[in-house]
């Protein structure tokens, strides 16, 4: 099953490689990973999307907690949460496709952020499923390039992950 793990860790050189190394050494899956510093510059927040059985997710959480630089780990799946991912997608926009691409971007609440005579670059934010749906909805042949950030997640309501 797909899980979203939220991790607070020390913003130190090498901390990211410890997390990534742990996943590869123990043969866990990483579907996506995002990381950046928080409002406290000594801390980083990471969101990892992974999948595995409940036993595997339990081990992943425990192994992450064991890393000295990891301050806190939560599995966002354990309660209500929100996730967002951003995608930049460059598509061919010529002839009748040009109008169609603009229309599709509007339907998915995307924004065209760069335009040339032959292309549009569209910025799209939403859940990973929504981004997948957009890719499914348009003609594969017009896609020139996609860049996705991977999901970031946060708990819903007043629940906060802080140290």
């Amino acid at each position, binding site marked *: 099953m797909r899980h979203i793990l939220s991790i607070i*860790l*020390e913003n130190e*050189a090498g901390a990211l490689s410890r997390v990534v*190394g742990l996943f590869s050494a123990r043969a866990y899956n990483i579907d996506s990973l995002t990381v950046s510093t928080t409002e406290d510059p000594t801390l980083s927040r990471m969101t990892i999307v992974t999948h595995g059985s409940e036993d595997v997710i339990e081990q992943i959480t*425990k*192994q992450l*907690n064991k890393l*000295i630089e990891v301050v806190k780990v939560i599995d966002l799946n354990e309660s209500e949460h929100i996730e967002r991912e951003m995608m930049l997608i460059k598509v061919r926009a010529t002839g009748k496709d040009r109008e169609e691409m603009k229309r599709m971007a509007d339907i998915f609440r995307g924004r065209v952020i760069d335009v040339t005579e032959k292309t549009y670059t569209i910025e799209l934010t939403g859940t990973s499923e929504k981004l997948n749906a957009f890719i499914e909805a348009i003609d594969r042949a017009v896609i020139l390039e996609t860049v996705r950030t991977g999901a970031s997640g946060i708990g819903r309501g007043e629940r906060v992950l802080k140290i």
Partner: protein
Amino acid sequence: MQISGAEIVVRCLQEEAVEFVFGYPGGAVLEIYDAIFKQQQFKHVLVRHEQAAVHAADAYSRSSQRVGVALVTSGPGATNAVTGIATAYMDSIPMVVISGQVSTPAIGLDAFQEVDMVGITRPCVKHNFLIKDVKDIAPTIKKAFYIASSGRPGPVVVDIPKDITQQLTEFNYPESVSIRSYVPVAKGHPGQIRKAVSLLLGARRPYVYIGGGAVQGNASEEVRELVRMLGLPCTNTLMGLGAFPGTDPQCLGMLGMHGTYEANMAMQNCDVLIAVGARFDDRVISVPSHFLSQPKKIIHIDVDPSSIAKRVKVDVPIVGDVKLVLRDILDLLRQNEQRPDPAALASWWRKIEEWRSHNSLLYTPSDELIKPQSVVQALFKVTGGDAIVTSDVGQHQMWAAQYYPFNEPRRWINSGGLGTMGFGLPAAMGAQLANPDAVVACVTGEASIQMNIQELSTCKQYHIPVKIINLNNRYLGMVRQWQEFFYGNRYSESYMDALPDFVKLAEAYGHVGIRVDKPADVEPALREAFALKDRLVFLDVITDQSENVFPMVQNGKGLDQMDLPPHMRDIQQVPFENNRDYGNMC
């Protein structure tokens, strides 16, 4: 007053009351070695290979409860240390390894003797540091000792670039250390402890499974009290030998792949199991699904939460320091008059005695050929069971574990997790230096000993009078055994041709060498060797080449599906269903 980074390193080690630093100099650590030259407080032991430095520091720690320290240079010095670090990591040994690094401006430029030590060791250390500022040396070394020795212990690497050791700053050693992201649990959860006690008291076929955590956690006394208070049968793992006395009848011996029949059968058939600092690894329980096929309730005490529910789901997990958790359990038991049903327990013991009566460690003695098992038994006799025994890896290791019943913890020193050949001799050095008055024996084989034999030179330099018992069967014995069992006797590359004359070799290094090839000479030779108290004696014992280690639980089989020694072959065991489960196995 400002002092150099190198002097700070030395002062830090002095502050930590380090007794011995095992190491080897080189370009990147010359400043540190110069600072060592100018001090008297700790002693540096110059090994002949960095791997041996780390093994020696490791065994120093295992035999003394203190943090072992090794010092190596950058590049090849650092990579040579990696096997030693991984060995300590797998067995949870507290150690600080200081490695030199090329100067900071040269890092990343493929400089001479540069290697990414922090990167290379990341998967086999508890933690590691690359120091980038001379002011960070003291706090980092303080943290390194704290991390290495707290919680589940483990090795910590501190990589220090050469220019940092040359820069100057004030020296202030921190009094204490606190790391917000690292807070090891000590006390167990009281609710879980109550559950554990009630499970134990309701048990009809209870069993205590004692692992290396009981040794590293210094919980031997508490384990003994628990086992004796309730009259329980118990078993020690390879890493737990000595936590409960091996000669005590309540101990069923070692369990696992080469465990005794009774220890393995009890493990499979118990109804309540309490695991104390043990981790249900593949060499102990073999296939988890088969192990759990007979229903049992499991209590698991471990300081490392990730050890719990890793291979086996348990009913009562207790995260905490095993010593403190056991004390809490004992307190509750003392307040409670209830005891496990005596009739059920008596019947369980009768079953166990029936298993034990088969004497699964029986072997056929010989007047012609020296049986390796008999050498270990003679060693036990000659040393009064009182020696610190180190071993390498293979058949000799299993025979030492099976036939030398350890009655105290920290007397049996072996590479259980990583299985590192070449561990025995440097480990014996570390153990002897930590315990100058103890009798230290290294039980090894002619293959393993050659993986770090150069340390005979170190032993000469520092007058380390260990006794090497080389069980010489001219084969990589355990490999040969597997080839016999599973590969149709095709002994691919397991025969050791062109062996050296070990007696002359020992003599060339300035030691005493004795060759033994008759069964009647084994005990007298051992007596002669141990009588030479201030000399290293290399006993080259020519043993029966065909001997195998029994019992044996093959990969993919259950604990009640053992390959038994010849005299037990007619015993009906649980039939082997094809339940091979190679996940987590090798």
